[in-house]
């Protein structure tokens, strides 16, 4: 019980809530869209952190859960007329199921082999979906504009998906903290430090790893449904874009893996910076800064990974002893 009074938990939760609720109170649609992108990234990073930060298994294929969940949800909405909340849960459940099925098999691999296997899984699922007729094959699934009517029109539907992403990111933070401070979480962290030693100490590692994988897959499954519902269509290339996985990894590295606040700060910093660079009107000489946005983002990553490998939160904890009691 004591762990729920920790200031680090409340700090993280407050950051997410403040970010999420600002557009709600100002009713500013532009802010809402930026908020959606950031909260989506935060939830992706927090969920990936469960398998990567806590358990020490680097997954390059995290986007597979996002894509498959998104497809399942769109299928439920389009073919069965399912309401959005049900579709969201359906998407999460399908991804969790895939993780459960895969977990026992590929989590036997360690290090680079596991990372490569996750890329393979993503490619395999993408190819499968591109040939799977109920999911529309290569043309994907498209929603009629009228689908938004039952939610009060497109404007209200966009707000609804936004409330959804706030709820998921708040849940993600609470859930991630719960795992981190639970006995189960301790087991995961002992696997991260030394898997063989953890086994000797009584952690049933295959089960623990599989459960961590399932938990980390459930959230992206739900997020995918919200994103593709909002966009009105889903295609294999968008759903299983490897770049998105890698971006999530970078966000965690940026903020600090294995911490609660790290992925939140990393995702926020990364997405906000990319967003600002993309839409900036500033000029470098006679060229717009926005033409350089990838160069600048890349340089920034390089600087951080070279000089602050523990990420921002990790670095702060190392440098300032008193922050170790505040930041988790």
């Amino acid at each position: 019980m004591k762990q729920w009074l920790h200031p680090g938990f409340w700090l993280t939760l407050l950051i997410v809530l403040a970010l999420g609720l600002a557009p709600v109170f100002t009713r500013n649609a532009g802010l809402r869209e930026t908020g959606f992108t950031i909260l989506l990234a935060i939830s992706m990073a927090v969920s990936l952190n469960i398998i990567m930060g806590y358990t020490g298994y680097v997954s390059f294929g995290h986007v597979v859960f996002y894509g498959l969940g998104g497809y399942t949800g769109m299928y439920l909405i389009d073919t069965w007329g399912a309401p959005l909340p049900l579709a969201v849960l359906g998407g999460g459940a399908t991804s969790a199921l895939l993780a459960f099925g895969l977990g026992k098999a590929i989590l036997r691999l360690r290090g680079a082999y596991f990372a490569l296997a996750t890329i393979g899984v993503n490619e395999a699922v993408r190819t499968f979906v591109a040939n799977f007729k109920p999911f529309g094959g290569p043309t994907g699934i498209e929603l009629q504009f009228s689908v938004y009517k039952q939610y009060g029109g497109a404007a209200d539907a966009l707000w609804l998906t936004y409330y959804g992403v706030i709820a998921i990111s708040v849940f993600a933070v609470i859930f991630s903290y719960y795992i981190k401070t639970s006995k189960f979480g301790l087991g995961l962290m002992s696997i991260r430090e030394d898997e063989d030693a953890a086994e000797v100490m009584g952690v049933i590692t295959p089960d623990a790893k599989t459960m961590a994988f399932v938990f980390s897959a459930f959230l992206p499954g739900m997020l995918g449904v919200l994103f593709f519902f909002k966009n009105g269509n889903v295609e294999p290339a968008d759903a299983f874009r490897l770049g998105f996985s890698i971006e999530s990894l970078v966000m965690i590295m940026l903020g600090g893996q294995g911490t609660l606040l790290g992925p939140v700060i990393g995702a926020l910093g990364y997405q906000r910076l990319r967003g600002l660079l993309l839409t900036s009107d500033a000029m470098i000489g006679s060229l717009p800064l926005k033409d350089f946005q990838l160069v600048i983002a890349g340089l920034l990553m390089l600087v951080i990974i070279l000089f602050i490998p523990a990420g921002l939160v990790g670095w702060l904890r190392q440098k300032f002893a008193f922050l170790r009691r505040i930041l988790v």
Partner: protein
Amino acid sequence: MKRSLFNLFAVLVILSLALAACGAPAVEEAPAAEAPAAAATEAPAAEEAPAAAVEKTAIVGFTASLTGKLNVESTRQNNGFKLWMDQVNAAGGVPLADGTVVKFDSKFYDDESNKDRVQELYTKLVTEDNADFLISPYSSGLADASAVIAEQYGKIMVTTGAASDSTYQKGYTLVYQAYTPASAYLTGSLDLLANADAAAKKIAIVHENDKFSTDVVTALEAYAIEKGYEVVLNEGYDSGTTDFAPIINKIPADVDAIMGGGHFADGQQFAKALSDKGVAAKFISLLVAPPEPTFAEIGDAAFGIVGPSQWEPLAAFAPDYGPTGAEFIEAYKAAFGEEPSYHAAGGYAAGLILQKGIETAGSLDVEAVKAAIDSEDMMTFFGHIKFDTSAENHGLQVGHSMVYVQWQKDASGALVKQVVWPLEGKTAETVYPIK
């Protein structure tokens, strides 16, 4: 000590970058203001500029794929649109019924060729940049995402580079398509074949397994069956395929025509493989690749290959609105130093569609401009423009048709592109059979 200095340096770099990024939005007008001035010298109608009328600026917003896989096509489309804007502004803008004159300015962001931020950026264009009209991103998938925002905020959006029919069957009322829809990409090839040889009956369809190509061949197959053709093979290949031998082996030896393809690289490779394997089809028509000048790099394997194009510099339409093809080509070359592709022509045509709509409506009011675009029926250098106005297919392009080119040999034996269909635009007879 050294370590912490490094760390401090890193933090400073991040902070200064972040500040720079938030900081300086003040200088934005400079490049936009220069461009029309530079174009004024080359625009044909510059001297018509009225002396002193009340001026309004209409902002046209869009995202372009400045980075990522769609960069080349998107940049050309962007250039075409910019040329239109510069020429209209240099010619004095568009006069409205109340005597004011509308000039255009554009506002655009990079969508990085993916969907992640399309809705975010379009919302920003509408709510913060106060865009009056929208142009779609390049490609159907991205255009679909942006259409939700356009429709929600009641903004007219002209799509260019977004060929899939399905976008216009989703119930939008403000989205208009400049391109011939995907369903009509290859059906003209079949008409061409029927015209060249009434006895040809067996068709093999081999296509890339992606949204666009699948949409195209689904419509092609239905049309072929309706016309009494026998589709002896319909086979998809993965994007990025380079070895076509297994698929070619499945094509029956007595096939009359092979149709399909996907995008540039695979289409070119497939044509080469067909030639290398000595496939004896009398007629081959492939998507996207043949109209590109670099298609001829495969040498004699390119001979006889037919391909649909949204627009060809060779095809001379007699426009009743906007510049002639020759004028467009000349202005485009002067501005960007290269031959315009159909992507560039499409970008220009999107501007013409808006311009005509605003002129007819005599105002910038969305309902009035919508009614005007609904009733557009014009011949431009890009071809015929007319939209479906039924509830089921609103905004679908029904006027424009594809131009079909074929690689032929000139007197000296060099490969040249000729327009062979439609008959009214042809520059040479169809070579048939090619084998």
